[in-house]
């Protein structure tokens, strides 16, 4: 259809309003605030703000996310995906912590505190030395181990053609069909409270 005419609804967003809500940081660093912090400062802030869930060494407690470890496990049976082992861009760590952490008290950290926490997470992943100062200027001195570990969705090339066309309707399997795995054996399904008896 042709471009619709403008209806004149809404109003122009003010610079202060855009600044308040537009905090996203791109992989190239666009959006990074001026500031800095190092792992030693970060350790203290982390202990105070983060360690209750993520552990003193960012190793994770109980079911809470592990932020460190897992190097070179991505092709293992049970990969451990952390900021160090998996995340492609450091910008994501800054962006996400600044906007959405601490869990339950999001958006309360200062720019410098976030730099320090990110530095501590990097240090916990053995990616920087303890005297490294992370700032908007040194941000890209850090190499993310899995930066090249991602490919753009390739299902169109690897799956669609071979799984298309007229499917088999009769005698579709070799030999007898056998049950090879049963959910009942694991027995991890919740009991259905309030379920009516059949």
């Amino acid at each position, binding site marked *: 259809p042709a471009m*619709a005419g403008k209806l004149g609804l809404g109003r122009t967003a003010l610079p202060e309003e855009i600044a308040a809500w*537009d905090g*996203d940081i791109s992989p190239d660093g666009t959006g990074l605030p001026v500031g800095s912090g190092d792992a030693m400062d970060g350790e203290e802030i982390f202990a105070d703000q983060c360690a209750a869930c993520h552990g003193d060494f960012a190793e994770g407690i*109980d079911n809470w996310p592990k932020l460190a470890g897992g190097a070179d496990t991505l092709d293992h049976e049970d990969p451990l995906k952390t900021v160090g082992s998996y995340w492609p861009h450091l910008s994501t760590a800054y962006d996400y912590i600044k906007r959405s952490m601490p869990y339950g008290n999001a958006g309360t950290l200062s720019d410098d505190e976030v730099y320090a926490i990110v530095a501590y997470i990097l240090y916990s992943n053995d990616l920087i030395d303890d005297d490294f100062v992370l700032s908007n200027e040194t941000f890209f001195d850090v190499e993310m181990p899995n930066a090249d570990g991602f*490919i753009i969705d390739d299902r169109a090339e*690897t799956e669609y053609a071979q799984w298309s066309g007229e499917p088999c309707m009769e005698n579709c399997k070799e030999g007898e*069909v056998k049950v090879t795995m049963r959910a009942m054996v694991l027995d991890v*399904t919740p009991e259905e409270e309030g379920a009516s008896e059949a």
Partner: protein
Amino acid sequence: MSNDTSRRSFLTKGLAAGAAATVATAAKAATPDPLITEVQPWAQSFGDGVDATPYGLPTAHEGDVIRRNVEWLTADTVSSINFTPIHALDGTITPQGCAFERHHSGAIDLKKEDYRLMINGLVDNPLVFSYADLERFPRQNHVYFCECAANTGMEWAGAQLNGAQFTHGMIHNMEYTGVPLRTLLEEAGLDTAGDLKDKWVFVEGADASSNGRSIPMAKALDDCLIAFKANGEALRKEHGYPVRLVVPGWEGNMWVKWIRRIEVMDGPVESREETSKYTDTLEDGTSRKWTWEMDAKSVVTSPSPQSPITHGKGPLVVSGLAWSGRGAITRVDVSKDGGMTWETARLAKPGEKMALTRFYLDTEWDGSEMMLQSRAMDETGYVQPTKAQLREVRGLNSIYHNNCIQTWLVRANGEAENVEVS
């Protein structure tokens, strides 16, 4: 009287003569049914008045048709998932009250009066809309499924959860009323953005998690909706009240709830929800990113582990759902023998693009064990794969996008179980 009697006996004889010997005849009761022969209280006194229930809930007799969660899946319940009781539903429209929820920092309470939507970035005029503003734009209505990228994710390594609700219930299907995202982008003006082919929009919610995601401009201008009504009424709080994004056919994570900001950008943000999460790790350790579309998928909802056969042999309705993020469902096949032989099921209505489709196989059950499967096809010609086919390409660690064929082992006693077969 005598005329009546003779007429009745004539009719009975006629029916018996006309009926083929192979047709089952209805059973005879040995004694009269007191529910018929004795006057019941509901046939004698009053039910509820019309002032008793200004906004109703289902009858208590349907108490098992509820959302359920699986505690061990997540660290806590505010960044978690629950499941639609698809084993007990029919048709295609999901009742909002039992439609699944997935939050990353809980279901927030946001009044229409407090709602603001900002459009900024590479636009001619960055704008702020109130809720009332949105209701003044031309509206559209569309039915779409919203399927969590992780639906069936627990089943990658094997048969794990015993029920269609738990294996396939991270899904709902609603009729949305809303404004095309395109309309709002045009209101802000896209001349500044230059060539739109390489542009993106970043969308985020008003909640603490923000759930920010990057969407290519082509999709944003195609069929995304800024929706404020679902199944005729306002969105439920847990589904994004007052306004959510609808991204037809694409993974549920992108359907940003409580949407507060849309930014036109030169590139993707590569936010947490499209790097750490919603990326799919392959066997060699590399991971796919931007796996947006939900591929063709189906599941038999009944019989299933939570919906066993209780009526014994004879007529049986096998019922289920099929859907595809790449277009309309054109066909669903059902197998009773674990995929050795297939019958084409009946679609209750012709498939609609990016919406749930109901299928039925009206069949006879001889009381023997069945390995029930369903297999969907969509208008692109794509055929829903087996778990083995998926694993061959992807390995076991993808977490997301498991659209494999599901097998229910139905035993001679009518009970069903989630299994894998050779």
